[in-house]
């Protein structure tokens, strides 16, 4: 052992010469005007967590109201506003920027081995656009709320007297924020990869961000123009969506879903990328079918553009169009399933260690499985006609968006937390929080499948007494879920205050971000790092002196067991 320790003691940690990014400069200005992608990532992280808190509180209020079939404390109007804002805040302010703009911003340049994204100023602008967009959302709340649903369907959105203009303006601005992030990522990955970082040596998280960025760049402008037209409709009465003037309200739905279906992949693709990293790292095995996973991200991104009509099966589209959209919808499940099977194959015979991030990854695979499979019922014409606009849909998209994106986001957050803030958290409590979230989530949303298939429509404040049991089950689950998330927040805050200092590589991961110190130095790498294929774990061994993993060039046969050293031993 002592021999081993001396051998690895000289292991090199890149970037040791500089102060880390958190301490290299001080004062609020050094944050507000920073061009450092890491600080921008951290600001994004704080911003989206605040939005998540806001949206989460609204969710709990909604669920609380639904505890009884009759009015508990929310009027019908208030209820409408509440679910609209919950949906809009969660999708536009939280889910869409969550993984790409917070975790991605921080990690993409480091994982790629470069000093920053291609356009640091645009990156900062993207953050401030997000802030502006959020302010417009707040304005919408103050101006009397919004009750159109997050989908803003016309003609209702052109006639309601709630703050549609402020909210659409917000969506428009947030769209640009999202476009800036995506554009920056595409350019960074295309033109800045250092020598040795070939396309197929990129970590899969980067592939997923690449695919996500394609969607952000191609779909978001259409949302932008839709928002503008809606605003023009309300202010000038241009009539494009108004049947009384020859306009067509269904055109709005086409425009909206042309963006918003691809947008669900903006939410889920980065989550899949995170899970690919987690599964490989915590199975200590090269990812199975690297190229398939990489290509399937791109395939999902492209196919995702062809299926928007499945939201409009009952909006009066032609039978032919509906059939084609239905068939195309099914094709998306192929690349999705490829990923799931590859994760399972990676775990097969791997040395799985159940650290917190891995617990989240496993939860993701299970929940996304349910979410994805129930999507097939909605994509099939015969069943969707019955399930459309019921709680079945609500359950389906919560399984993908919460069970998928949120869970993966939390997994990624726990995984990269030591890197971002240089502190470890309490493993045990973090795992307990994960378990509570998992149980609470299923208790909340599984009953909703039953509710929906029995005919409970979505977006209703009052309901028939026959549904009481499942609604109460769901509300209780939601409270449990809320507690789990609070515990999770507590664990992370505790780590910031009291956490043990994190080593450069606490999990034995093989990608570049773990080669610089925790937290990374201001410029990530002083020199272009040496890049080899990702997901090779042979030369990464646990070193008790560092309480973390270090690299050795090659391992003699007899020391093989070192590679599989139990990770628990240092937690």
């Amino acid at each position: 052992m002592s021999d081993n320790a001396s051998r690895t003691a000289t292991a090199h940690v890149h970037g040791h010469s500089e102060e880390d990014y958190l301490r290299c400069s001080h004062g609020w200005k050094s944050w507000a005007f920073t061009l450092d992608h890491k600080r921008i990532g951290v600001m994004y992280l704080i911003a989206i967590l605040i939005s998540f808190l806001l949206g989460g509180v609204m969710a709990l209020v909604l669920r609380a109201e639904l505890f009884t079939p009759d009015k508990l404390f929310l009027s019908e109007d208030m209820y409408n506003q509440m679910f609209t804002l919950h949906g809009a805040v969660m999708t536009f302010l939280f889910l869409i920027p969550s993984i790409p703009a917070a975790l991605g911003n921080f990690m993409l340049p480091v994982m790629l081995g470069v000093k920053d994204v291609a356009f640091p100023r645009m990156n900062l602008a993207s953050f401030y656009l997000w802030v502006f967009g959020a302010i417009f959302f707040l304005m919408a709340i103050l101006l009397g709320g919004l009750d159109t649903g997050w989908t803003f369907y016309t003609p209702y959105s052109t006639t309601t007297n709630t703050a549609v203009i402020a909210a659409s303006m917000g969506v428009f601005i947030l769209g640009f924020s999202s476009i800036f992030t995506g554009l920056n990522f595409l350019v960074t990955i295309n033109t800045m990869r250092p020598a040795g970082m070939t396309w197929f040596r990129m970590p899969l998280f980067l592939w997923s961000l690449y695919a996500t960025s394609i969607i952000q760049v191609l779909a978001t402008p259409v949302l932008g123009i839709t928002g503008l037209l809606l605003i023009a409709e309300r202010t000038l009465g241009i009539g494009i969506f108004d049947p009384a003037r020859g306009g067509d309200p269904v055109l709005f739905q086409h425009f909206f879903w042309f963006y918003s279906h691809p947008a669900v992949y903006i939410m889920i693709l980065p989550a899949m990328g995170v899970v690919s990293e987690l599964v490989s790292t915590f199975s200590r095995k090269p990812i199975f079918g690297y190229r398939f996973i990489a290509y399937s991200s791109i395939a999902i991104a492209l196919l995702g553009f062809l299926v928007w009509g499945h939201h409009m099966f009952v909006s009066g589209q032609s039978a032919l169009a509906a059939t084609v959209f239905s068939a195309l919808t099914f094709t998306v499940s192929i690349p999705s399933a490829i990923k799931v099977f590859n994760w399972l194959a990676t775990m097969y015979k791997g040395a799985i260690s159940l650290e917190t991030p891995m617990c989240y990854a496993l939860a993701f695979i299970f929940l996304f499985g349910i979410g994805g499979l129930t999507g097939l019922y909605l994509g099939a014409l015969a069943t969707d006609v019955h399930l459309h606009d019921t709680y079945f849909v609500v359950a389906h998209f919560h399984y993908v968006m919460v069970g998928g994106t949120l869970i993966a986001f939390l997994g990624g957050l726990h995984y990269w937390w030591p890197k971002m803030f240089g502190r470890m958290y309490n493993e045990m409590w973090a795992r307990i929080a994960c378990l509570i979230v998992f149980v609470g989530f299923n208790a909340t949303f599984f009953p909703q499948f039953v509710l929906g298939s029995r005919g409970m429509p979505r977006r209703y404040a009052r309901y028939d007494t026959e549904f009481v049991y499942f609604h109460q089950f769901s509300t209780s689950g939601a409270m449990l879920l809320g507690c789990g998330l609070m515990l999770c927040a507590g664990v992370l805050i505790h780590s910031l205050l009291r956490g043990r200092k994190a080593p450069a590589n606490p999990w034995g991961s093989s990608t570049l971000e773990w080669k610089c110190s925790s937290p990374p130095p201001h410029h990530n790498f002083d020199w272009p790092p040496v890049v080899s294929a990702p997901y090779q774990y042979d030369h990464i061994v646990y070193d008790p002196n560092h309480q973390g993993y270090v690299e050795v060039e090659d391992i003699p046969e007899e020391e093989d067991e070192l590679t599989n050293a139990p990770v628990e031993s240092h937690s």
Partner: protein
Amino acid sequence: MSTTTAPSSEVAPSEHSDGGHDDHGHDPFLAHHFGSAKQQFDAGKFGMWLFLVTEILFFSGLFCAYAVYRSTHPEAFANADQYLDPMLGAANTAVLIFSSLTMAWAVRAAQLGQKQLLVRLLTITLSCASIFLGVKAVEYSHKWDLGILWASNFNPQAHAAHSPALLVLSIPAMITVVVTAILFGVGKSRKSEIMSKFWGCLLIAALAYFGGVGLGLTVPVIEGAITGEAAHASAEAGHHAAEGAHHAAAAEEAVEHAAGHATEHAAGDAVATTAAKSGSLEAAAIEQAAIDRTYTGIFFSIYYVMTGLHGFHILIGMGVIAWLLYRSLLGHFGPRYFGPVDFVGLYWHLVDLIWIYLFPLLYLIG
């Protein structure tokens, strides 16, 4: 015995000199996070192309709306044709195509480091943009005076009202002229070459706007002289409009009725049924006029949204070209660094290209 990973410090000294973050001594325009000027250029160019893709998608929503309404209400488009003057559209098309030429030439001048030529070409490009806006202002104000507005406000009149619309639209240009002239004077008196040249060029461009207004006002006159028709370009349009207005005003009720049927995509059927019911051809004619009016209004909604957004892009383009002008006066561009001129050039060509689609789709549909 195995060794540790190759200590990168051995590699560092050689690579540091061209990639080091604090080491921009030899190239003031190379950002620290790029490895080389070429990489920086490639990144900028690719970024600009992607941005153009988003622009295309942004407009494609409108082109989609256009296509949908053109297929569901072809009669509205046929009817709208009379209100637009293709010669003005053509004049603007020529101006923009010419500005694309000068912009492309400006890129070349930047690459060759021909500073003075670059400044001149950018000034011409900027002036062309101004002329374009001047012509557009004439068109918009004329439509305003004739009541040819978007859907809910589409109410064509026989004779153009005399409103100060053109004057109001020209206020920003007038302010720009005054401000640039003052700053030009200040620059002169302070003997600051860069300042006086910069504001001088902008002054020229601002004045070009009024050239555009002049062009917009004379084209119809010349047109009239050649074809021998009434000098006023829209006299014909006004005539048609008068008929429409007459019928429509006759039956407010008919408008509502028509509107009620508007959801049915077969407007013709609706008319036929109603006509049969009322048994009066006159009523049918009135209703037809009302329908035309309703739907033609939609055409103008699309017209204003498309040309308005395009005009907004022209304005943005003018802003960045002015910025280029300033930087070229400072002598920033040369064979080693010309990226921004190149990228703005791409943007400008796209703005032109969109107009090249808008022109036939909006003006040449008769």
